[in-house]
C-alpha cells in the first residue's frame, strides 16, 4: 500500500478541563474517530475520518468538544484551492467518480436572498393573524376551465385534488436512501399537519401503508416496489424524471444498504445494487410520458392526481409546458441546490439552474400559454425557511417541497456523507445501531413543529401584506422586489427592483 496524501479536514478540540472521560463520544461516532486509551486512561481522537457531523459535540454531556476546520493549510492559491487539490488526491487514489451527499454547496448566489417582501402601510391595513382568520389551504391538481353548476349544485366533480392545510410538503426520499424511522417521522408529521410526504423511488414499506392518505407514491425509472396496491395506497402518484442534485443521472443504492426490509420493499434481491437508469426506458419523448401518465391514471381509476417531477434545467419552461399538455396534474420542479443521498460531485455542483429562475420562467410560460390553471406547480431545491416559501408562492408556485430542511429538523447536520451509509444521526443509514438513534416519535414532533413554526411565520408575513388567504399571494409578484439583481435577472423573475 502506498501512502495516502489525504489529511484530516477537521480538528477536534477536547477541553480537558471539562472532559469527564464518559466515553459518550466514543460510543456515538460511527466513524470511530474517538477512542478510549486504556493505557492513558483517557479519550483520544484521530481526526482523519471525522466528517464533522457534530454528533459527538451535541451528545457530549459537558460540552467539552468542538470541531473546527483543520488549521493545516496548503500554500495559498486562489485557483488550486484545497478542495481542488484534495479531489485530485482522492481520484488519483481511487480512479473513481467523486461522490457526495446533500445539495450543491458552492457559493453561487442565493436568489431568495435577493428578493424582499412587501408590507401594508396606511393605504391598506395589515391583518393580525392572531385575531383574524388567515387561510393557507391549498389544492394541488388540475383545475377545470370552468365549473358546471346546476341548481346550486356542482354538476361535474372537479378533477382529483390534494388538499393541503399548509403549502409545504416533504419531498421524495426513498426507503433505502433514508431510514424507515426517518420516513415514519415525516409521514406522521405530514398526517398531523395536514400535508403529504413522498416515498421517493424506494417503494412503500408495509409499516407505511397506514399513512396512505398523506402519501405521494413515486414511480421512477427503476420502478422499485411499484405494483397495483402501491399505486392505490397513495393520495397521488409522482413520476420522477429527474432530480435537482443530479439532472440526467439515474440512482445507485449500493448493495450494502439493501438489507432484508429494503429488499422486500423494493422487490429486489437482498444485497444487490439498486440501479435506476438515467432515463425511463419507456419514456424517450413527451408522447411516451403522456402514455405513462394516462396508464397510471387508468390504473387508479382517475381518482388520484399525477405529478411529474423534473430537474430545473436550461429549457425548463418549454419542458414544463409539454408536461402540462401531456396530462400531468402537478409539475414538481427541483432546483440545482436540491439534496440527494448520493450524487456525483461534479454533476451536483455544475448541472442545472436555480429554482427561483426555473419557477419564474415556468409560471410565466404557462400563463402566456393560458394553461397555468391546468397544472399545479410545486417547487423544491433548497427552501430553507418560511420566507423562501412565501417568496416561492409569490413568484408563482402553488406549494413547495422541503427535504433537506426536514432532515435538518430530524437532526441532520449537513456533513454531506449520506452516501457512506454511516449517518450518525440515524437518517441516511440502514445500520440498525444507527437507525435507532432516530426515535420516530421525537422525529415526528420535530418535523411537525417545524411545519407549525413556518405556518405561523407565513401567516404573519401574509397579514403584513394585507392578505388573508394564500391564494391571493400565488403569482403575486408585485409583493416582491429585487435587490442586487441585474436588469436581466429582474426581467426573468418578473419583478421590479427595490424602490421602483
Amino acid at each position, binding site marked *: 500500500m502506498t501512502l495516502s496524501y489525504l489529511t484530516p479536514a477537521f480538528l477536534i478540540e477536547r477541553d480537558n478541563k471539562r472532559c469527564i472521560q464518559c466515553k459518550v463520544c466514543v460510543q456515538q461516532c460511527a466513524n470511530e474517530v474517538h477512542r478510549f486509551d486504556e493505557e492513558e486512561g483517557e479519550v483520544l481522537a484521530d481526526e482523519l475520518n471525522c466528517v464533522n457531523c457534530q454528533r459527538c459535540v451535541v451528545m457530549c454531556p459537558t460540552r467539552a468538544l468542538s470541531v473546527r476546520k483543520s488549521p493545516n493549510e496548503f500554500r495559498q492559491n486562489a485557483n488550486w484551492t484545497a478542495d481542488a487539490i484534495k479531489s485530485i488526491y482522492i481520484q488519483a487514489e481511487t480512479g473513481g467518480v467523486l461522490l457526495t451527499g446533500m445539495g450543491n454547496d458552492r457559493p453561487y448566489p442565493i436568489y431568495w436572498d435577493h428578493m424582499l417582501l412587501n408590507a*401594508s402601510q396606511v*393605504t*391598506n*391595513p395589515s*391583518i393580525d393573524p392572531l385575531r*383574524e*382568520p388567515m*387561510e393557507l*389551504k391549498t*389544492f394541488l*391538481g388540475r*383545475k*377545470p376551465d*370552468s*365549473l358546471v*353548476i346546476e*341548481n*346550486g*349544485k*356542482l354538476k361535474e*366533480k*372537479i378533477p382529483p*385534488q390534494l388538499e393541503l392545510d399548509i403549502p409545504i410538503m416533504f419531498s421524495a426520499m426513498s426507503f433505502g436512501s433514508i431510514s424507515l424511522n426517518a420516513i415514519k417521522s415525516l409521514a406522521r408529521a405530514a398526517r398531523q399537519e395536514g400535508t403529504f410526504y413522498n416515498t421517493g423511488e424506494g417503494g412503500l414499506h408495509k409499516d407505511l401503508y397506514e399513512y396512505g392518505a398523506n402519501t405521494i407514491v413515486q414511480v421512477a425509472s427503476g420502478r422499485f416496489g411499484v405494483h397495483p396496491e402501491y399505486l392505490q395506497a397513495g393520495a397521488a402518484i409522482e413520476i420522477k424524471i429527474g432530480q435537482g442534485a443530479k439532472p440526467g443521472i439515474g440512482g445507485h443504492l449500493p448493495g450494502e444498504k439493501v438489507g432484508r426490509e429494503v429488499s422486500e420493499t423494493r422487490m429486489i434481491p437482498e444485497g444487490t445494487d439498486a440501479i435506476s437508469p438515467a432515463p425511463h426506458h419507456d419514456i424517450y419523448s413527451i408522447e411516451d410520458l403522456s402514455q405513462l401518465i394516462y396508464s397510471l391514471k387508468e390504473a387508479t381509476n382517475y381518482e388520484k392526481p399525477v405529478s411529474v417531477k423534473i430537474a430545473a434545467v436550461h429549457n425548463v419552461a418549454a419542458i414544463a409546458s409539454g408536461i402540462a399538455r401531456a396530462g400531468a396534474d402537478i409539475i414538481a420542479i427541483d432546483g440545482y441546490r436540491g439534496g440527494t443521498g448520493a450524487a456525483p460531485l461534479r454533476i451536483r455542483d455544475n448541472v442545472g439552474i436555480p429554482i427561483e429562475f426555473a419557477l419564474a420562467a415556468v409560471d410565466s410560460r404557462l*400563463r402566456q400559454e*393560458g394553461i*397555468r*390553471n391546468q397544472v399545479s406547480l410545486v417547487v423544491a431545491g433548497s427552501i430553507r425557511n418560511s420566507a423562501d416559501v412565501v417568496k416561492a408562492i*409569490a413568484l408563482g408556485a402553488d406549494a413547495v417541497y422541503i427535504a433537506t430542511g426536514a432532515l435538518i429538523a430530524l437532526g441532520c447536520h449537513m456533513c454531506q456523507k449520506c452516501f457512506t451509509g454511516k449517518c450518525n444521526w440515524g437518517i441516511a443509514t440502514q445500520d440498525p445501531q444507527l437507525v435507532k438513534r432516530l426515535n420516530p416519535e421525537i422525529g415526528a414532533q420535530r418535523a411537525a413543529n417545524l411545519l407549525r413554526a413556518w405556518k405561523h411565520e407565513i401567516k404573519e408575513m401574509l397579514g403584513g*401584506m*394585507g*392578505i*388573508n*388567504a394564500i*391564494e*391571493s*399571494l*400565488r*403569482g*403575486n*409578484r*408585485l*409583493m416582491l422586489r429585487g435587490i442586487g439583481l441585474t436588469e436581466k435577472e429582474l426581467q426573468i423573475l418578473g419583478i421590479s427592483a427595490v424602490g421602483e
Partner: protein
Amino acid sequence: MLREGVVRIPSGCAISGMMNKKGKCFSGEDIIKSIAIMHDRSNGLGGGFAGYGIYPDFKDDYAFHFFFDDDTVKETVETLLNKQFTIIFDEPVPTRKTKAIKDAPIIWRYFVQPKSKMVIQSGIPEEEYVVKFVMKVNSEIEGAYIFSSGKNMGAFKGVGYPEDIGDFFRLDEYKGYIWTAHGRFPTNTPGWWGGAHPFTLLDISVVHNGEISSYGTNRRFLEMYGYKCTLQTDTEVMAYIFDYLMRRQGLSLDVVVAAMASPLWMEINRMDPEKRELVKAIRAVYGSLLVNGPFSILVGTNQGMIALNDRIKLRPSVAATKGDFLYVASEESAIREICPKPDKVWAPRGGEPVIGLLENAQVNYNFAAGENERIAINS
C-alpha cells in the same frame, strides 16, 4: 412623473349608488348631492359617475366614450373604428364650463354597431369582439382611451372633486334608473382623466373604495384570458373579474360573490356536504380571483346593482331601502342626504353582498336554493 397605468397608485375613496328597481329613470342630481356630502373622502384628484338607462334613443348601440389627447389620435381611432364598426351617431360629450375643472382632454362619444360580417369572420361572440377592440385601443393607441363601452349606459369621469365632475358633465340633464358615483383620494398626483372611477367594460361599471392586496394575483390570472390591465388600478381588475366570471364563465351572481369574497374555511366546514363541495370547488378553481385586502365596491350592470365588501369588512359600506329605491354608500350621511327617512338601513357584513335587481331583469343569475333570503334585498 409616470402616468397611471405605467405605475400603480394606491388610493382611498368614497362611493355611492342608487337604483330604482322598477327601472324608473330619475335625474343625476341626487347622486351628485350624495357624493358631494362625502367631499372629505376625496382630494380633488378624481371623480366619476355611471348612469344606466341614459341613452334610450340609442339603447341597442354600444356607446363608446373616448378621451383623446389631440385630433390626430382621434382621426387614427376613427379610421380603426370605421373599419370594425358602423358609427350610428357621434358627438362631443356635452360639458359645462366650470371653474373647478381644468385641462380636460377631448371627450367624444360614438354610438356604434359592430360590422356583423367582421364579427362572423372573427369567430368570436359579438361582445367578445367589442371587448377586444376596447382592449386594443386602450393598450396600443397612445393618447386615446375608451372609458365606457356598454349599451344604454355611460361613464363620466375626470380629474376633480366628484360634484364638480358631475356638474361639468351636466349629469342633472340625464335620466337613469341606476346611478353610481365615486370620489377619489389617490396617494399621488398623476392628473390623468382615465385613472378616475368608474371603470367599465361593456355594461359593467365598478366604483371602488380600497386597495386590494391580491391585485398581482388577480391581474396575472386575468391576463391569461386576454384582459389587458392597462390602468393598473384595482377597479379595472374588479371589472374584469366580473366580466370574466359572469359573461365568460356564465356563472350566477352568488357563485361570483363566492369566488370574489369567499366564505372562510371555518364557515365552509360548517356547510352541508353538497354546498361544501360546491364552495370548495369554487375556491379551488377560482382562487386566483379571490379579492383580498380592504375593499368596498359597487358594480352596476344593465340588470341591477351589486354592492360587495371584503370578507372581513375592512372598508365601510351602508345600505338602505325606501320604496322601490335601493341605496348603498360609504357613509350613512350620503344616503340620508338624498333620502332622509329610509324604510330600512343596515351595514352589510363582510363578504355579504347587497344585490339589487331590476324587477323585470332578464337575469341568468340563478341563485342557489336557500341563498335568496340572505342576499337578495327585494325580499
